[in-house]
């Protein structure tokens, strides 16, 4: 019963609310089904299946709240779940940051967040896709490690104030690292989709294989400041922290107002409205974007609407909790699910052609914060780093460690390419001058 229809889900939620005696009650039903295959050394290493449905009930008496959950759906279990939430609520302390549940909301229609093709994936399909990928590497005498993960899910909410929400989603993600048998070359490719009909493991494998072959016997360059072309997978990753996600994660109003964010102002307040980035930088979220279809409501039921976070380099909006929004008198914008960074029309290849001297970066790795005051991060290049001269890739280079801030980076913008989907976002390749590499890495 992992994926319930809207009517099936809301029928359960209505029944749950009918058992409630609390001042306020909200119920959330979630379910997922899917599977994954992991491979290494051109052989499958692990695989698994996921299948679950769960109900969460939050009951409130005044400013006291209690939560209980269950994953069986007969009347007796549902009634016990509500009673338990109410019992816990009666014992709980009053929350100083209490906000009443939201009433009925208007949600935008999020197109194409669910694809039957993805929901219908079988173990045989996964094995075939990963098998096709491994076959290419066998033929080219390369070694691959890959991960295919897919699933369908739904979330349904209902509360005593009249809020009602439901949405189905599907997702498939694939990533692959291909290495040369002598250990001197490595390449990477990744993609994610709502609709698995767009997925071709073999095509992505060929990209990673070509990069692996090209990256053999890299030469060392001195660390320092370089012009870099950062591919989209180097800017946002679904396997690790990333520079642009770090920036988006720091767009929180409360930490800025409290003085512990790069967005905090000397003497108090925040930097909303200030131009902090190159004027070509515009980042917005939009749940109706068909290329990155995502949830049209947040965890607490707030509508996800088209919201501009940075416009022409100016900080336009910060997200916040409902409590902080009310306290600070600001719009109560939820943190977005996915976002779009506007770009141009150039491909990575076009950007290489327009570069006299620079470094092409496929992927960044082990990115960790060094200083929250300046949003300084460190990390390394990985799986395909190349020196560009006179518009062409001249030779592979050894990997670098960087120490850089996305704030500085987005002020040193040379060019923006065409956005592509990475990790549920639309991200363009970026050409950045004076990107700071501080040491060399021998890692391949």
């Amino acid at each position, binding site marked *: 019963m992992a994926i319930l229809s809207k009517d099936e889900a809301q029928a359960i939620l209505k029944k749950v609310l009918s058992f409630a005696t609390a001042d306020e009650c909200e119920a959330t039903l979630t379910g997922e089904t899917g599977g994954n295959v992991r491979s290494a050394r051109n052989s499958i*290493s692990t695989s698994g299946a996921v299948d679950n449905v769960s109900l969460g009930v939050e009951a409130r008496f005044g400013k006291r709240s209690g939560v209980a959950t269950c994953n069986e759906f007969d009347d007796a279990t549902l009634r016990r779940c509500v009673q338990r939430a109410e019992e816990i609520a009666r014992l709980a302390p009053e929350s100083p*940051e209490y906000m009443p549940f939201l009433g009925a909301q208007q949600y935008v229609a999020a197109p194409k967040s669910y694809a039957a093709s993805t929901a219908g994936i079988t*173990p045989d399909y996964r094995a075939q896709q990963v098998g096709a990928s491994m076959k290419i590497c066998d033929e080219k005498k390369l070694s691959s490690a890959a991960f295919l993960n897919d699933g369908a899910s739904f979330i349904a909410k209902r509360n005593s104030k009249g809020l009602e929400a439901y949405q189905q989603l599907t997702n498939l993600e694939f990533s692959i690292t291909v*290495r040369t048998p002598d250990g001197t070359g490595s390449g990477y490719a990744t993609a994610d989709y709502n609709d698995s009909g767009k997925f071709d493991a073999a095509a992505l494998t060929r990209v990673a294989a070509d990069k692996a072959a090209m990256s053999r016997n890299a030469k060392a360059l001195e660390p320092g400041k370089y012009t870099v072309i950062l591919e989209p997978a180097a800017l946002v990753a679904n396997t690790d922290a990333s520079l642009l996600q770090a920036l988006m994660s720091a767009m929180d109003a409360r930490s800025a107002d409290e003085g512990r964010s790069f967005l905090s102002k000397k003497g108090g307040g925040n930097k909303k409205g200030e131009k902090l980035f190159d004027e070509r930088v515009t980042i917005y979220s939009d749940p109706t974007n068909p290329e990155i279809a995502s949830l049209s409501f947040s965890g607490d039921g707030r509508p996800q609407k088209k919201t501009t976070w940075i416009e022409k380099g100016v900080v336009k909006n910060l997200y916040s909790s409902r409590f902080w929004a009310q306290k600070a008198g600001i719009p109560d914008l939820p943190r977005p699910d996915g976002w779009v960074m506007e770009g141009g029309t150039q491909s990575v290849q076009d950007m290489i052609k327009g570069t006299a001297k620079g470094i092409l970066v496929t992927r960044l790795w082990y990115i960790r914060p*060094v200083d929250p005051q300046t949003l300084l991060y460190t990390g390394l290049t990985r799986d395909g780093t190349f020196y560009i001269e006179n518009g062409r890739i001249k030779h592979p280079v050894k990997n670098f460690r960087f120490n850089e801030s996305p704030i500085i980076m987005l002020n040193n913008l040379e060019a923006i390419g065409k956005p592509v989907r990475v990790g549920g976002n639309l991200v363009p390749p970026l050409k950045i001058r004076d990107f700071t590499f*501080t040491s*060399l890495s021998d*890692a391949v």
Partner: protein
Amino acid sequence: MKRREFVGLTGLATGALFLPAIPGLSATPVDPLRLLETVDPAIKKRLADAALNAAKAAGATYADVRIGRYLNQSIFTREKQVQNIASGESYGAGIRVIANGTWGFASTNTVTEAGMAKAAQLAVQIAKANAKVQKDQVKLAPQNGYGEVSWKTPIEKNSFEVPVKEKVELLLAANAKALDNGASFVNSSLFQINEQKYFASTDGSYIDQDIHRIWPTFSATAIDRSTGKFRTREALSAPMGLGYEYLTPKAADRINGPAGTGLVGYRNSYDILEDAALAAKQAKEKLTAKSVTPGKYDLVLDPNHLGLTIHESIGHATELDRVLGYEANYAGTSFATLEWKAKNAPYGSKLVNIVADKTQPGSLGAVGYDDEGVKTGQWDIIKEGKLVDYQKTRDQAHIVGQDHSDGCCYAQSWQDVQFQRMANISLKPGTSQMSVDDMVKGVDKGIYIAGRGSFSIDQQRYNFQFGGTVFYAIEKGKIAGMLEDVAYQANTQEFWNSCNAICDQSDYRLFGSFFDGKGQPSQVSAVSHGSSTTRFNGVNVINTARKV
């Protein structure tokens, strides 16, 4: 204890639907009373047999079952208020099989004989689908069954039995100490975990384990509104494989840092009030600390800092699955390949002796048996600077010519497949008497670093950069004031070869990590690293200050 009594004693009981996701704590909110329940091993044996029999009937040549009840409670406070208390439970079973020479895995939260059998059949179906494109057949190191056995973390006080009110009061008291001593903000939290794990396999093992972990921590922030500058000082506690007794300070467990720092290290018990007061003072001090001049320094590293360096540059580098390429798409491989090991090149100086230990009392990684039914033990990884062994699971032992696993298999929950995870990896203390003050006396130009900070290492474990929580200049054998903007960069082998002094056993402490990530889908595991304060000569230090 009856339910009413317990709930009454807890005083507080609430959950959070919208608490930010915390890796390793993904469980559904429950009444705190449920955290004291257990499941009869006889029932678990009957359920496990249902899965094993179904797997064999479907064609599995090997099967194991993990019935897991994962319990946690997290308490979050800031300043004078409780932000959240979340009590969570996750109960279900994971079934792993080998069919047609290939692994298959499925999990279920329908923990009935029928549910277990269905999941076992799905696991076999997945294995058979994958076998069609499989090249190498799984080869397991032999493992005799242990019959019906059990193991429990040797705790003195189950933290789930302590009333929530008492725990909240302790955290709020720590916050008050920080605020009274100049902190502008303070966030504190207490993580408690209980893994009730039952393992059964077609080898004939039925293993019941009860594992406990605890982690009290906080972050004190000082702000200078006039300059807009803010600095934090994190707690110097370590997550431990202990019960609530960890939060009852004992004088014998206090270890003073170098003279001139005021720092205190903690061994098997922790004084959160003392640490919070000092943290606030040090956070304020950091606002005006001198920015470091980049260059080569001798580094004196406190165990609460060095643990992370050991973890990244030795612990992960010597996991055999990384060495072989199983993590190549995610966390990477390792420079310490079988070929590199065969060359017998030094990993570190002769002072460097690293031991792997799955039995160390108080450590996060201590268990009686791993998640594929192997009894745990202790073994050498580096002896007098030379790499002598790796960390292995049953399906890897044959690759290095061994006939047994090291017991390094672990899954973060019943719904995740088990795979190789790090044992406790620790640096043995020096054999000659040496205190941290003795060590500082021998440094002409150096930096003393305590606490974890920023950390990053490349995908083959060569190049790393580490920060810390607090930094003190050492000049002519004495502590000479606080520094900031410090990070050191090194190559793993150069760094460990520059190790030239290790304090003795009296300074030895455990560092720990609750949330070590690895694998796809990514899983977390908890692991400890022991060491005494250690010195490394001539390490490259950079200045991390920037203007934006």
